[in-house]
């Protein structure tokens, strides 16, 4: 049952294989309907829609990251938007440097907003972001480092439950206020925008958009597999044990705060990666991604989809964001009521989220398998 190496273990799970198959099929279908079906045909998927789906996939990866800490570790982070935004800013800084001297002011090095602010040189933390490799590394390291410092302090002092949620909320709020300031050097309330190219590909071309959509899909698959590998390992079981009886886990000899920190940092890095994929697809990153409201919304996606399943988070993120796109198009004022209503309905009728419906069947089958193998073992 557990003899495989931890990274290969998810491939032995039925739910993971189904998830991967559905994801890959969806990616292939969208690609096909975009490329092979002529525009104007009712089955044609426009570049705009491909872009939209790409955005959903990056949100889905963010939701998976939140579900990892909330579902399996019991840490309700109301500040994961901060890690998402930091990854986004790291990507945004790279994209800004790619503009080069084609900005409005035509400065060879400085981004437009710095010229506008009369700065004469690049702040130290902007160096290196002209190199893609460095920038992509920072996409993971910047949120990871923030999570490491924050988590180290929080878990060491054994802050848990509601208090931890409030502190994460405060963290993202403080960062939002900081990033709003022009002297921070991240473009103030306008943020970073007017991107042109990524790795030499024009961001406005439909091919690049398709590429970003596929990259988001691959990132989601990899992130999902990584999280699955973590939760099906012994470390994952220690996480669940910590979630349900922290003192008891500590009593068994596990340094609980280190496990929490490890998983929290992994989750923050995945959130950063999601942010980095999101930014080139929407073409802008500004401090509103740090807003506490956004972080709470992510938690809603996970709750709607079903906590502690990972695929539930993906379903929730895509479902809610699709509904949001539709609703805000049809009647923008009603969206928040619809979201609230949806949340109430799901909590009352589907306490385990949309995934609860799906897993009911899977679980029945697994229980049948399990009791069979138990009989086999005792025989």
């Amino acid at each position, binding site marked *: *049952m*557990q*003899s*495989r*190496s*931890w990274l290969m273990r998810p491939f032995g799970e039925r739910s993971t294989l189904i998830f991967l198959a559905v994801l890959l099929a969806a990616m292939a279908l969208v690609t096909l309907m975009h490329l092979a079906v002529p525009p104007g045909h009712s089955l044609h998927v426009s570049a705009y829609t491909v872009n939209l789906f790409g955005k959903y996939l990056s949100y889905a990866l963010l939701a998976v990251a939140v579900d990892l800490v909330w579902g399996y570790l019991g840490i309700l982070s109301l500040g994961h938007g901060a890690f998402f935004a930091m990854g986004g800013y790291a990507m945004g800084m790279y994209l800004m440097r790619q503009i080069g001297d084609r900005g409005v002011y035509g400065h060879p090095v400085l981004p437009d907003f710095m010229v506008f602010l009369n700065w004469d040189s690049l702040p130290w933390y902007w160096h290196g972001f002209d190199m893609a490799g460095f920038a992509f590394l920072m996409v993971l390291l910047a949120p990871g480092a923030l999570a490491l410092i924050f988590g180290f302090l929080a878990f060491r002092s054994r802050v848990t439950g509601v208090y931890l949620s409030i502190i994460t909320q405060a963290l993202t709020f403080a960062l939002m206020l900081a990033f709003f300031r022009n002297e921070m050097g991240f473009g103030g309330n306008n943020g970073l925008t007017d991107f042109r190219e990524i790795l030499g590909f024009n961001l406005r071309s439909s091919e690049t958009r398709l590429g970003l959509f596929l990259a988001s899909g691959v990132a989601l698959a990899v992130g999902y597999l990584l999280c699955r590998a*973590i939760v099906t*390992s*012994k*470390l994952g*079981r*220690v996480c*669940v*044990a910590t*979630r*349900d*009886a922290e*003192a*008891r*886990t500590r*009593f*068994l*000899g*596990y*340094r609980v705060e*280190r*496990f929490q920190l*490890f998983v929290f940092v992994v989750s923050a890095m995945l959130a950063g990666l999601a942010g980095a994929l999101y930014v080139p697809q929407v073409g802008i990153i500004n401090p509103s991604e740090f807003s506490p409201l956004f972080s709470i919304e992510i938690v809603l996606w996970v709750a709607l989809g079903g906590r502690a399943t990972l695929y539930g988070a993906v379903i929730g993120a895509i479902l809610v964001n699709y509904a949001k796109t539709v609703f805000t198009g049809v009647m923008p004022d009603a969206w928040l009521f619809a979201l609230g209503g949806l949340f109430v309905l799901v909590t009352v009728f589907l306490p385990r989220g949309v995934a609860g419906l799906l897993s009911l069947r899977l679980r029945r089958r697994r229980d049948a398998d*399990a*009791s069979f*193998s*138990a009989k086999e*073992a*005792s025989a």
Partner: protein
Amino acid sequence: MSILRSLASRDRVFDFLVPVESPVDVRHGPILYLEDVTVSFDGFKAINDLNLTIDDGELRCIIGPNGAGKTTMMDIITGKTRPDSGKVWFGSRHDLLAMNEPQIASLGIGRKFQKPTVFEALTVFENLELAMAADKRILPTLTARMNGEIRDRIDEVLKTIGLAELRVRQAGILSHGQKQWLEIGMLLMQRPRLLLVDEPVAGMTEQEMERTAELLTGLAGKQSVVVVEHDMGFVRSIARKVTVLHQGSVLAEGSMDQVSSDPRVVEVYLGAEAEEEV
């Protein structure tokens, strides 16, 4: 760090070169030895000149009315409470008063608290797996694999605690008694030398009590077991030797028949119970 420090000191052999000695020395008989232990909380003497010796492999029951100091005694042995005076030795080598709780636990003293706490979302098998003595740092835990040796060990404990049939069921669905057995199993996974069990049969049905009695008597011999219990019938069914605590010290010690016929014991404990029953 400690390796570096030991490299720097020149007055003795490097720490990591000193062979690790077998942890507990029981050549002289007793595995646990308490002498003249006294603890007071705000002037109240919870433990008063307590002397107690547990032999290796023995099953000992400790009884006594409320406030006799049973739980405080357990706290002292596990390092949770420091006595004001006295000696507490584990085997003839380890002075427990010089150690902290995790050190004492890693020496092989397992304590089962009154209220069962198991990981309800995990299966019975997984509960035992987490409890097993293993490298508990992050990366070894992440990459840990199940092998035949580990599975055999878990199966052995599952058989001992009688939950082999329920191995793949979630611990949350177990009955109260089954949770107690599972928790004892979790202690056994750490291969303890001495088990301290606090009121194991509180809230159990007759049938569950019988099975618990079988379980505990089965454990004795391989481990030393100290059971604190209120239920006289249960104590009678398992105990070879009973210690009666009263006001923080030993009032009587011997077989159940001996102590129950001791007039002082009858007066302070059994008598009180008899009156309650009347």
